[in-house]
Structure formats: C-alpha cells, structure tokens
C-alpha cells in the first residue's frame, strides 16, 4: 500500500501529462490546450530529419516502435519500445537542469510467444541533465539507456537503431525502412473525431522496417530478424467529448500492403463515425481512409488478472472499399502493458497475426494491436488515488 501511494504521486504527474492524450477524453488537470503553443494545422511544413525529433511547442509527442521478430529457430517474439514526451509550463525564476519542463515516459515490452511470457517495464524521467530527451544534432531520442539513434545516410529511409534493457531482457535492433515515412491524414493532419476538427495530430509512420538484431532474455541471447513499425505523433492536448479510449492496429500484409487503422471509442463501446486509417501499398504510396471507411468489430474478450479489465483481443476488420476482410488474433492473450505501481493507466499492446481475404483471394500478415481505456483506473480517471477522481472526474 505504501508503495502504491508513492507511485500514485508520480502517476498523477503522468496522468496530467498523458491522460489527455492517451485517454482521449480524460481532461487532466493543469494540462489544458493552452500548455504548449504548438497547434495542429493543415499544411504543416514537414522537414526531415528535423521532424523526426521532438517538437517541444506541442504538448504531447510520442515515438512508438513495435514489431514481430523471429529467432533463427523460428521462435517468435514481439517487442514494443515507446518514448512519450510531455511539455509542461515551468516558472523559470532560477533555471535548473532538473526543472520539469519536459517529461519523458517510456515503455519497453517483450512478448515471448513460446513461453507465453510478457515482459513489461516502464521508465519515467524529466529531461534533467541528459537523462532523457531528443537531440536532432546527435540524432537520438532516449530515456536513460533506452534509445533510438538515427544513422546518417539516406534521409528518406533513415536506419534507426533501438536499444533497451532492464534486468530481465535487453534488445538491440537495427531497423531499415523498406518504405519512406508516411504522413497520415489530409494536409499533414490526422483527425481523430469526425465531429470536431480540433481533435487532431501530426502523425507519421515508417510502416515497414526490416529489423535485425539481438534479443536477450534472462541472459539467453537470440539473433532475431523481423518486421517493425514506427509511429511518431505530436499534438496539442485536446479532450474529445464523450470518448473513453481508442483501438488501434498496424498490419503488415504478406503482399507488401500496410494498414494503420484506429477507432476512437465512446463509453458504450461504439465508435460513431470515428474510425479511420491509412493504406500503404507495396510501393509505399499512401491512401487516407476516410471516417467510416473502416469497420472494426471486437471479438473474443480476455480478462486481465492484474487490472480486471476486459480487452477484446480478437478483432474483425473490414474495409469494404477495397474488398478487404481480416481476422486479427493475438500471439498470446496476456499482453497488457501494466507495471505494478506504474504511471500510465494500463493498456493492451501486443503482437498479432492476421488472416483473411482481399477481393476473394486469401491474404495474411502480422501486426500490432493497441487498446486503451479498458482498465478501470483509466476509465474513471481515479488512477490509484481518490483525489484524481475528484479532480478529473468532472471532465467526463
């Protein structure tokens, strides 16, 4: 209990920092739309490598790396390495390296399919004296010794090196883009809600990254190869009325087509018109999928023993416009990102396999599925501390 209380303190900072973003509807106190000066507006002039790195003017930003890996033996692993950033307004009377103007959170997970093991670690830091950050000069984004480094060279398809470790596992992966970065939405703006154009982000992805590297679990090292996905998103915090979470998935089909799909969910479990996504063909050309063009149907539910949350771990995806229908199945059910006493509300993010048909022909592939807003804490905003509920509950 003692431990939990203490964690709650840290948690609240994060709830404030990321609640509005991840929760898509949790209005965290002190992190209103006014925090950062940055606004998501159409025609944002993307420029690389600059825009691969951080945008402190925007409240919230994240870099999501997920992927499916295989050892030489064929043994399957999934991984997630995510860097979250949050801008906070700080009164700089007497500047200190430890001022909390930039807050960094990171998640590192490994899915060991054969052992049905899911390793989760969370790391929270302020920028501090080089503890965490993003540095365009050094081409690096890091949180402690978890990092991604962008190798110089082909700026359209920059090689990215991931490093992460804890006392159980370590991962070092070199990711080579097979397709250039895709900017989602129209005019560089990815909208989240059909009814409110202000709910939007700047969102880009490397949808197909060839991964090679080493994964070590309990001092057993595996040479791994596979396919990874990278999402980079930045935006001004903006709560969306009546929404409690989202479901998102990345799909890499065997024929070279990649799909990013998401729906913003309301309390009844419906999406309204708020499902959308992007289709990237084998050549790398992207087509935006408009609101309503994507149909997401939740299937079998799995109940988390840690949070008691029930996640629909199986999905049926339909995009009638292109004649695509897919079944999404988790590699293992237990891929809930929940750290005991962790900062972020629990969410489910895990490796999946997909199979189905396109225009009558069978197709299949791999991917990652993310589901937020199912855990009770997340849902009520009362993340382990009675005060939070009182403070942020009003926004619901």
């Amino acid at each position: 209990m003692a431990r939990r209380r203490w964690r709650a303190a840290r948690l609240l900072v994060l709830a404030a920092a990321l609640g509005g973003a991840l929760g898509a509807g949790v209005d965290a106190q002190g992190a209103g739309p006014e925090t950062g000066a940055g606004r998501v507006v159409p025609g944002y002039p993307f420029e690389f490598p600059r825009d691969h790195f951080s945008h402190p003017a925007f409240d919230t930003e994240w870099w999501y790396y997920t992927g499916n890996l295989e050892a030489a033996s064929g043994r399957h692993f999934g991984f997630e390495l995510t860097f979250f950033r949050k801008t906070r307004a700080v009164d700089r009377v007497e500047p200190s390296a430890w001022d909390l103007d930039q807050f960094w959170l990171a998640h590192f997970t490994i899915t060991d399919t054969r052992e049905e093991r899911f390793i989760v670690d969370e790391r929270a830091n302020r920028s501090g004296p080089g503890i965490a950050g993003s540095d365009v000069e050094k081409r690096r984004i890091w949180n402690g010794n978890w990092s991604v480094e962008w190798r110089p060279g082909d700026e359209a398809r920059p090689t990215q090196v991931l490093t992460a470790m804890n006392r159980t596992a370590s991962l070092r992966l070199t990711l080579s883009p097979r397709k250039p970065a895709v900017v989602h939405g129209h005019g560089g703006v990815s909208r989240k809600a059909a009814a409110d154009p202000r709910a939007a982000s700047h969102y880009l992805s490397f949808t197909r990254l060839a991964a090679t590297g080493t994964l070590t679990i309990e001092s057993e090292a595996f040479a791994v190869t596979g396919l990874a996905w990278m999402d980079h998103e930045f935006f001004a915090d903006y709560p969306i009325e009546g929404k409690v979470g989202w479901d998102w998935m990345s799909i890499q089909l065997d024929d070279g087509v990649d799909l990013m799909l998401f729906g913003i969910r309301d309390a009844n479990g419906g999406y309204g018109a708020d499902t959308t996504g992007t289709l990237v063909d084998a050549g790398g050309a992207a087509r935006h999928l408009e609101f309503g063009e994507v149909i997401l149907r939740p299937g079998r539910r799995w109940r988390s023993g840690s949070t008691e949350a029930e996640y629909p771990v199986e999905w049926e995806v339909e995009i009638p416009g292109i004649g695509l229908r897919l079944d999404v199945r988790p590699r293992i059910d237990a891929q809930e990102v929940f750290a005991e006493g962790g900062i972020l509300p629990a969410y489910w993010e895990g490796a999946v396999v997909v199979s189905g048909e396109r225009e009558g022909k069978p197709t299949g592939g791999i991917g990652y599925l993310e589901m937020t807003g199912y855990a009770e804490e997340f849902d009520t905003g009362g993340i382990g501390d009675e005060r939070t509920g009182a403070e942020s509950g009003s926004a619901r």
Partner: protein
Amino acid sequence: MARAVLLFRLIVRSMVRDRARALLTVSAVALGVAVIVAVDLAGEASMGSFRSSLEALQGTASHEITQAGGIPDAVHGDLVRLEEPLVFSPRVEGFASLVETGERVPLFGVDLIGDPTLGEKGSMARPGTSELLDPDSVWASDSLGIAPGARLAVVGADRRTELEVRGVIETSEAQADRYLLMDIAAAQRLLGRTGRLDRIYVHAPLDETRDWEERLRPVVPPGAAILPSGTRTEDNRRMLRAFRWNLRMMSYTTILVGAFLIYNTITAYVVRRRQQIGIVRAVGASRTMIRSAFLFEGAVFGLLGAAAGLVVGRLLAIGAVEAVGGTVSSLYVTSTPGDLELRPWTVALAVLTGVGTSIASAWWPAREAAGGAPTEAMARARLDTQVRTASGRFTIVAAVLTGLAIACCFVPPVDRIPVGGYLAPILLAGAVALVAPRLSAVVLRIAGRALAAPFGVIANVAARGLAASLGRTSVIVTAMAVATALVVSMGVTVGSFRETVVDWLESRLQADYYVSPAGPGGRGAGSTMDEEVAARLETVPGVMDVGRFRTHSLRYDSIPATLGLADVALYERHPGVEFLDGSVPEAVWAELARGDRVIVSELFSYRHDVHRGDTIRLALGSGLVELGIAAVFYDYSGERDLLLGDREALLEHLPDPRLSSAGVYLEPDADFAASHATLLRAVSGRGVKVTPTRTIREEAIRIFDRAFAITWALEAIAMFVAILAMAEALLNLVFDRRSELALLRMHGASVAQVRRLVLVQAGLLGALASGVGLVLGAATAQVLLRVIHKQSFGWSVQLHWPWELLAGALGVIVAASVVAGLYPARVGSRLAPVEVLRAD
C-alpha cells in the same frame, strides 16, 4: 570431605559475620564491572549502530559516487545512458534547521520523478499532481511528527524558506530517521547547490558480480570517487574506534583499583583467620585445599560483584549514553543513539572481568594462607617479613618493567590502536607496585622523625606501625597511587589539551566577527552562502578586510578530509595559522597563491606520512590535481584531516564561488560593539548570522568540556573505589595491629591518642600515595600525550600543568584518606585492651 566442609564453613561464616567488609568488597567489584559494562553498552548504543544520518535514504545501493565540490549534474545523465542494467539514484544532501524548534535535520533532494528506488523506500500519504513540482513541497519523515499540510519554516544554506509539508514518510521503528525530502531541483535551490549533486547511488543487480566500478570509471570524472556503499558508516566507525578504545581502557582502570580492594579483603581474612587456618591444616587439610578455599572466596566476591555490576552498569549506561553521545556529536559527527542492549558478550565480559580479577587478586593471599607449615600459618606477619626481605629483588624487577614501559612508547600503533601506549602505563603501575615497599619504608622512616615534632610521639609510632606492616602498607599505597595517577594523568592530559586548544583558538580565529549561513552549522553541514554576502560586508565602514572561506569534503588515500579554501593574501596581515615545521609564513603564503600548493594539518601529515616538500594527488572537482605541501600546520578543530589552500587559485578546480563562512576584520580603531549591528544591517535579508569571535571560542571550549565529561566521570568512580580500598586497608591495619594498640592503651595512651594514631596513619598513607601517584601520573600523562593521543588522534599537544587542579585533587585525596581513616580510628580506639591482649 568433612574437612572441606569445615573449611568452606570457615570462609562462608566469616563472610557472613563480617558483612560490612564483604559488602564493601562486592561493591567495589560491582562498581568496576558496572563501569566496564556501562562504557561498553554506551559505546555500542551511541556508536556501535552508528550510521551517518545522511545514509537514511541509501537503500540497497552497492556503490556510491562522490566528488569534492559536488558532481556536475551532467554526470548523472551520462551514467543513466550507460548500457548496463544499473539504476542510479542522484542525491543532493544537506541540512536544514527547523525555525520553530531549531533542530537541524538532514535534507535530501531526490529525483522524485525518475528514481525507481524511492518506491521501495518511503511512502508519502496523499500526494497530488502539482505538489511534486512545487518548489516549496517537502516531505517529512514520520519521526519528525509534522502533520501533512503544515507550513514549515526552514533555513537551508543562507535562505529562510516556507515549505509546505505534502506528506509524511514512514520510517522503520528501528531507524526512526529524522529528515526532510524534496525534489532535487527544489533542494538544489534551497541549499544553493544548483548544478551539483552530492552523491549518486548505484544499484547493481544482486545476482551479477561484475566489476561495476570498472564499468563506471570511464563515465565519471577522474576526480570522482566510486566507493562501496556504506563507506561513510565505515569511515565513522574507523574514526570512532580509537576513541572507544581509550574509553574502554579507562573503564578498566576502575576494576584495576577494585582488584586491590579484593586483595585487601582476602588478605584481611587470611590475617584474621591465621589461627583457624592453622587448626584446619593441623587436622589434615592440604595446602591445595586451603588455597582453593580462599580462591573460591575470591570467585564468590567476583561473581556477586559481576551480577550487581551488570545491574548497576545497565543503569549507569543510561547516563553514559548521553555523555558518550555528546562526545561523539561534538568531536565527530551527529549521531542518534541506538537502544541499550545487554548482549551475551557484555554479560560474559562482566563475569569474566569480575571473577577473573577477583581470583587473580586472591591469588597471593591464598598462597600466603596455604604457604607455611601449620604452626607457621599461626604466626603473624609472614608476608611483611617476606616483603621486607624481597624488596631488593622487587626493585630490580621494577627497573626492568620501567625499561619495558619506555620501550613500549616506541611501538607503532596497530591499526591505529596504540597498543604500546596502553601497555606502558600498566607496566609503570607494576613497577610502582614493586618499589612501593622499599619506598614506603624509606619515606615512613623519614616521616616518622619529621612528624614527631608537630604531632608528638604518637605520629612516630604511627609511621613505625605502617612501616612494620609493609606488605599491607605498600599494597594500599600502590592502589591509591594508581587511582591518583589516573586523576593526575587525565588532569594533565585534558588540561594540556584544553590549554592547547584555547591557545590555538586564540591564534586561529583572528577575525573579529564570523559570518556564516544562519541555520545549520556544525560538522558536515556543508551549508554555503552567496559570495555577495562578503562583498556587502566589505562595504561596511570600519571593516578592514573580509576573508572568504569555503570548505569541501574530499578523500585522500581513502580517508575523508576537509579542504579549506581561504584568502591566503589576508593571512599576511592576519596570521591565523601556526606551522609545526618552522616554515616561514610569508614564503608559505606566496607559495599557496600560486595554486599548486596546499598546507596540511599535523593530523594529515602524521596519518599519511607526508611532509613539507612532498607532492600529493588530490581529487579536486572533476580532475586529479598534483599539489605540493608547502607546510604542516597545527590544527585541533577535530578528528578530520584538514588541508588549506588559496581560494582564488583553487577556484579553477572547484568552480563554486559560494562561501562556507567569512571572517570580518575590523579597523584597529573601529567600535567593536557598534559594528555588530552595522554588519547585521549589511547582510539583512540574507539568512546569515554574524557571530563575535569570542562567542565562537566559548562555544568551542564548551564543546571541548562536554567531550571530556565522561572522562571525568570515569575518574571520579575510580577514585571513589580507591578511597573505599583505603578505608578497608586501614581497618585491616587496625585489626592487624590491635595488640599493639591495646599495648599502647595499657601503657597509658588515651583513646584520643589512639584515634589520632590511626588518623595520622591514614594521612600518611594518603600523602604517600599522592606522592607516588603524582610521579606515576606525570609519567602516564606523558605517555598519553606523546604516545596514545598522538597515535590514535594525531594531535601534538603542548604540555601544560594544571597546577591548581592538581593541588586540589591531591588535597582532596589526602583529605579523603583521613576521612576514610575515621571509622578505623573509631574501631581502633574502642578496642578493649584487656580482651584483645587476652585473645592474642
């Protein structure tokens, strides 16, 4: 078997019959044991569990990184990026005083956001979103008893701040640490340490035994130290060990004096029961049986004494903890006493010393009892004759012992414990015991004649009486002399030390006022103030100079030391340092100003065996700096090594201009009294205090006296036991010589004359013991100052004779002897002459 019963009945019966004497003896043993137990217990409680209060939040770290002048923030960033499964906990450490109570408590700045080890450590009730980040948020450990939500005014460094207590951290009952905790950014600001960390704890995986230090080394600056965690506790322990040993040795003196008392008592029994012993021997008891009986008696005294001593010692320990704790706090580091715990080891120690000493003391009398043929045993004064005839041989052995004692003084310390130094006084005491008979004989002969004039013939008779029972007389003289020597040697040592410190304070503190951060002061506080304070002071009319001073903690050769940075240019006008090696001050100051030289304290020089002209490599700031030693100076500020360098020149390596203190030198014609107010006005708004130098001196002396309070207490107890021994010895004497006294009475001596006779004897004994004690004490003082102190503390102390104190003490001893003679005198004067003679 029947004989054995008879024998033991003989012993037990006499113990019961002579209850007063038995009680006295048991009390003496009890006191001796009690002192040992108390010192042992108090030592354990106030130091055994000793832990630096700054280690409260250490957690399970395996290493800690420190750096003189603080670790630059950025080093932490470099460390956390190391691709190793290590966790790093940065710390800002300092002290804050609570304005309301004046209590000075450790203040920790921790990474409230990023440090995952904090979750394992503290818990904080009801934290909230913005609270963590407010610069006035503070958490208090529960033992401070501050309620969440309370406003808390504190002074840290040179600022007073109102903080809001956001929550309470539960601490374990055993530790009950009292501290405040803030976020690292807020703590840096409050303590004036922005940009610097005091410590970084390293948490390594427990199951991996790799050379982490090797891995960390390339990342931290060359000047940083990577130490196993808990080094501070180890440092403290090491530092305190010598101090504890000295206390222990002193506590054993009491039992040594007590041993004489046991010797006396058993001897008294032997003397009184000579006839009975003869009878028992005549009916067939063997010598071994007789001897065993008396040794058994000694053991019984020892056992009873030890049991009582344990109880009394436990009680005494309550007071002793405070005294010892006070000494530790004032001489070393702030400590919180732990619990008094009677460990099996302590019990064993008590029983062993009690019984061991008793049996050892009973050895000679027991041998004497068993020694002669049955008829001889019935004759008296065998011992006296023996002593008289053997005294020549004794003198030779005494000379050998003295030689050994001198040799011991040149034995180097073993692990900083001056073994030779401890042995020397014991050997000297042995020598005194051996020359005592001959010396007493000579002195008594002379005294007898000399005293005849003022006190009449009875004085002569008294002296002769003493001389006639030399065995007993010399023992009591030795016992008293040892106790006296203890008083004298401690008096001389502490007196000299005090005088030396007073002189040193006088010369060291040259400024008229000292300005320092208001709140936390004292050892290890490390509080600093803005340099601007000194600049403001310089503008005050009447101020001639302002000396800026800054201290940094560092380690040299893995021993902690303090580096003081001073404006050495000012030393030319206001010399505040005296050199041991006759260095020319002007030359030294010039050398220091170059920045590649320092001067070191005597302690540092002694401990590391470095001297003028040598070069040392110091970890200063981020680098390792080669510095020459320009001179060695006297320092009595504490048990810590001290180095002094030029502030201006060494700022290059330790680029933190903040000050630990500033000395204000007034113009010779300035109005001292008025200046105080002017200075205060000049620094108003800054949380600094302006202290007249006189106050600092007085405080230093007060601390000094407090540190030695326990010493005096131990001595008083030893002296008390010695006086008990004296009373008993006189009683023995009276009893032993009862037939003479009876004869005197028969020949017309009055009751008053007999009383006077005994009193003169008491006075003579006291005087004799004082004289011998004075000599032994003076010799012991030399050993204490030149060997024990030097070896365990490294201070050289100028010898001062505290004449008044000594005269007073000796007067008290003689007076106490006479008082101790009052009861025996009464007993002696009340003897019924006829009955005594008939009994004989």
